[in-house]
C-alpha cells in the first residue's frame, strides 16, 4: 500500500503487468474513490463553469461529459478535470485526489470574485468511484444493471442501479480502453465492488492498483496532473489545445492560451520512445550538447506494447515528430525519438 492524495492505496494486486494486460484484453476493476467531486448548481452555474474551465461547457447536453481544466489567469493548471452536466443548471467536476481542497477553495474564491448565483459544494465524501475498464467491461456491468449500457456513448452517463445500489454510470476512464466509472454511495461501495468481481469471474477480471492505472494511462498518452503538468504548465504547453474552447468568450487564462496557440510557444509536452533497454522516469533531464533543455515528466516500460515510452517537456524546436532526443538516465545519455500520440489506440475506437 502507498499513500496517495491522503488515501492508502494498493500499487498492485496480482502484478502491474498482469493487471495491465487484463484491462487491454478483458477487464480490470479499479477502486478510484480517492477522486474528488465538486458540484456547482444555480442559475449562473454555466457562466461560472465557463469562466473557471478552458473547454466549452456550453456544448454539453445534460448527461454528457467533457475533459477540461481549471485554469489560472496565466493559462496554467489548477487541475485537470472531467465536467459532467447533471442538469441544465447543475455541473459536477471530478478532480484529482490531491487537489480536492485546493480546487474547492479556488473555485469558491474565483466564483465569488466573478459574482453570480451559484452554490458550490465539495461532495467528495458522498461518492465512491469504481472503474470497470476493458473490452469486456460493458458485458460484465450489464449483468448487474437494468440500464441499457449499449446506448451510453463514450463520454456520456446515465443513472440506474448497479447490484441494487443507486449509481451514476459514466462511460469514461483513464486507461485508453472502453469502460465505465460507477459512482455509488460509499456505504454500498464494497457490495458493488464484490458484485463486479463476481460477475467478471467468467472473463477473468482482475482488480487493478495504482501501478497499472499509471502504465495504462501513459500507454494511452493521457496526462497525469502533478506529474506531466502543474501550476507552471499551460494547457497549450501540455499539448491539450484540443480541450480549449477557442470559440467561447473569455475565461481564466484565455489571453495567454490564445497567444501561445498563435505561435508564442517556447516549449511543449511530447511523446517519446526509447529503443535501448532503459526507462526514462519522471525528472530525468533531456539534454542537448550537455546542457539540460527539458525534462521527462512520465516514463515506463509498457506491458502491452512492450516499449519504453514517456512524455517530456522540451523546447518547441525539439517537439516535431521524428526529432531525436537525448535523455540522461543515471549518468548515461540514451537516445529517444519523438513519436505521434497516442502510443496505444484501442481497436475500433470511434
Amino acid at each position: 500500500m502507498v499513500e496517495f492524495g491522503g488515501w492508502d492505496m494498493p500499487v498492485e494486486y496480482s502484478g502491474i503487468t498482469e493487471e495491465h494486460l487484463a484491462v487491454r484484453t478483458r477487464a480490470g476493476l479499479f477502486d478510484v474513490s480517492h477522486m474528488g467531486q465538486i458540484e456547482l448548481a444555480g442559475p449562473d452555474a454555466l457562466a461560472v463553469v465557463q469562466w473557471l474551465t478552458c473547454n466549452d461547457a456550453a456544448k454539453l447536453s445534460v448527461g454528457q461529459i467533457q475533459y477540461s481544466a481549471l485554469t489560472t489567469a496565466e493559462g496554467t493548471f489548477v487541475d485537470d478535470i472531467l465536467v459532467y452536466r447533471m442538469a441544465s443548471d447543475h455541473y459536477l467536476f471530478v478532480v484529482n485526489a490531491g487537489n480536492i481542497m485546493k480546487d474547492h477553495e479556488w473555485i469558491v474564491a474565483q466564483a465569488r470574485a466573478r459574482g453570480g448565483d451559484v452554490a458550490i459544494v465539495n461532495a467528495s465524501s458522498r461518492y465512491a468511484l469504481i472503474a470497470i475498464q476493458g473490452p469486456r467491461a460493458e458485458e460484465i456491468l450489464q449483468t448487474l444493471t437494468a440500464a441499457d449500457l449499449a446506448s451510453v456513448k463514450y463520454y456520456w452517463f446515465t443513472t440506474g442501479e448497479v447490484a441494487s445500489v443507486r449509481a451514476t454510470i459514466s462511460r469514461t476512464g483513464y486507461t485508453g480502453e472502453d469502460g465505465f466509472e460507477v459512482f455509488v454511495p460509499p456505504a454500498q461501495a464494497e457490495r458493488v465492488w464484490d458484485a463486479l468481481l463476481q460477475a467478471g469471474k467468467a472473463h477473468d477480471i482482475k482488480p487493478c492498483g495504482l501501478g497499472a492505472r499509471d502504465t495504462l494511462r501513459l500507454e494511452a498518452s493521457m496526462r497525469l496532473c502533478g506529474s506531466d503538468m502543474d501550476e507552471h504548465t499551460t494547457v497549450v504547453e501540455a499539448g491539450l489545445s484540443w480541450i480549449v474552447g477557442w470559440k467561447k468568450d473569455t475565461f481564466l487564462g484565455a489571453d495567454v492560451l490564445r497567444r501561445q496557440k498563435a505561435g508564442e510557444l517556447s516549449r511543449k509536452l511530447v511523446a517519446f520512445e526509447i529503443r535501448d533497454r532503459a526507462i526514462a522516469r519522471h525528472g530525468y533531464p533531456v539534454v542537448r550538447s550537455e546542457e539540460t533543455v527539458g525534462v521527462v515528466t512520465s516514463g515506463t516500460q509498457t506491458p502491452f506494447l512492450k516499449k519504453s515510452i514517456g512524455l517530456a517537456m522540451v523546447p518547441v524546436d525539439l517537439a516535431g515528430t521524428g526529432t531525436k532526443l537525448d535523455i540522461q538516465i543515471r549518468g548515461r545519455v540514451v537516445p529517444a525519438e519523438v513519436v505521434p500520440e497516442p502510443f496505444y489506440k484501442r481497436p475500433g475506437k470511434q
Partner: protein
Amino acid sequence: MYPSELKYTQDHEWLKVDDQGATVGITDFAQRQLGDVVFVELPDVGRQLKQGEAFGTIESVKAVSELFAPVSGEVLAVNPDLGSHPEAVNARPHEAWMIRMKPSNPAELSGLLDASAYTALVK
C-alpha cells in the same frame, strides 16, 4: 522459503558458494518489492568488485534499484539469459543468478546472513 544453502545480505542479495566461486542473485523478498522486472544491467566480466559496491541495476515497471556485491572479488561471468528473460527473476529468484564471482576475501563470507537470520530480517 529461503534456501539454507545460500547466504544473504541486508541489501537482499543472495550468494551461493561452490568450488569454482560464488553465484549472486536477488532474493524473493527483493523481487516481490520490485514487481515485474523488465531490465537487468550487469557489469563486464573481469571487473573487480568491492563488497557493497554497486555492480548493476535492476529495473521493474515500478522502480529502478541498484545491485550490490555481497563480497569482494572478480566478475567471472554474467547470466546471458537475463537479457531476453528478465522475468525469470520474478519467477525463480533464487535460481535466476546475475553474476558469478571469485571471492577475494574469504573472511567476508562469514559476515553474511544465513537463511534463518535473513528470514527474520524480512519478516
